[in-house]
């Protein structure tokens, strides 16, 4: 049985300088209330690992605007001109990672792999500084795991022990990030009693979830 935490309590758990895995794709399936609470508590020097930084005023974009972010690891920042400006001015360091490589690196961190070999990025700037390994005459890049101090994820529904279900394209990085956060905080839209979610419908087992955000009022 988990205790439900308020957004402010969730934000208070997260210290300045923390590495955060944040679910969502262009602010769809992002933990919006936790993000708002991080902005409200004036968080600083965060490293954000996420698919993208959404756009100004939405999702992760709010953290960028608030000056809460020191570093971004993402596949795409193209729809957030603030992130691009802050990258150019040197305020934010940006590491661009192909989307499929990003999710495999996070998964590797979550399931205890030391790294994965991929063809994605070969012959491109993504290759710079990375080890290549040849297997049966084919060359692959060695990509290393990513873990977070926290994973902040959004879900459609949770039960009291933290089992999670996701909805349509709001799955995206959430189920994978739930594996790779030292502490996992989930923001479900609804919370239901144990037994309402069938074992077969569970996408993230509750044993991975440390804190559930209380339901929205």
């Amino acid at each position, binding site marked *: 049985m988990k205790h439900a935490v308020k957004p402010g309590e969730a934000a208070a758990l997260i210290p300045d300088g923390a590495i955060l895995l944040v679910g969502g*794709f*262009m*602010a*769809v*399936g992002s933990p919006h209330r936790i993000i708002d609470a991080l902005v409200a508590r004036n968080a600083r020097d965060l490293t954000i690992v996420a*698919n*993208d930084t959404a756009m100004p005023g939405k999702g992760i974009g709010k953290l960028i605007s608030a000056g809460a972010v020191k570093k971004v690891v*993402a*596949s*795409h*920042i*193209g*729809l957030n001109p603030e992130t*691009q400006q802050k*990258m150019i001015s040197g305020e934010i360091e940006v590491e*661009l990672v*192909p*989307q*499929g*490589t990003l*999710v*495999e690196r996070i*998964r590797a961190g979550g399931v205890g792999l030391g790294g994965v070999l*991929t*063809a*994605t*990025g*070969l*012959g*491109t*700037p*993504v290759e710079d500084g990375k080890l290549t390994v040849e297997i049966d005459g084919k060359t692959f890049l060695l990509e290393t795991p990513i873990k977070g101090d926290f994973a902040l994820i959004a879900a*459609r529904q949770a039960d009291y022990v933290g089992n999670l279900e*996701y*909805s*349509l*394209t*709001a*799955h*995206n*990085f*959430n*189920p*994978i990030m739930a594996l790779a956060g030292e502490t996992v905080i989930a923001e479900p839209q609804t919370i239901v009693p144990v037994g309402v979610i069938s074992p077969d419908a569970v*996408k993230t087992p509750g044993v991975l979830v440390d804190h559930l955000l209380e339901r929205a009022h």
Partner: protein
Amino acid sequence: MDAKEIIARRVAQEIEPEMLVNLGIGLPSMVANYLPKDVHVFFQAENGVIGLGARPPEGMEDPDLTDAGGGFVTAVPGAASIDSAMSFGLIRGGHLDMTVLGGLQVDARGYLANWMIPGKMVPGMGGAMDLVAGAKQVIVAMVHTAKGNHKILPECTLPLTAARRVSLIVTDMAVIEPTEAGLVLKERGPDCSVDDVIAATGANLIVHGDVPQMQIA
């Protein structure tokens, strides 16, 4: 018929029944409009659905169901929600039959550059590198020249998306197949002569006999 419609209509002819197809945002997404009614395919949106459908009816938009551009979409009957690991597992594992992507440059080797203009546009590669490295067929859909400048070049001057030869280049002026021997001109656009195409192309084109004109409705 404008340049983009020519391209979209011609690309649509490459799609075969039962394929799994990923259309990039912008011009490539127009391809879906020109698919014959009797050709059933599943479109993948890499942010999380197989079975992407058209825009939803007014007032029925679901914030948890969007395409990779962040726009509201529907899901067709038989659709499947997928997380990012499954989505890119399909792309990188060779399960995606075709991807249609825009291009900034393509070169004589058939290599594509479409994600970055150093010092000017650094949006990130999103899923483009995974798509080009992993899809069974990669079709580049782009206008033949940009403000009079060649986009098909001896060698890309912009950073590559992948060091992999794409399957086909479809422009408003030509259909070109990159091969081991070089770029083969397969079709010329409406009202284009072979000489027109050659003049508008920065790389050498291989021309075998008569080059037919695109057959588009």
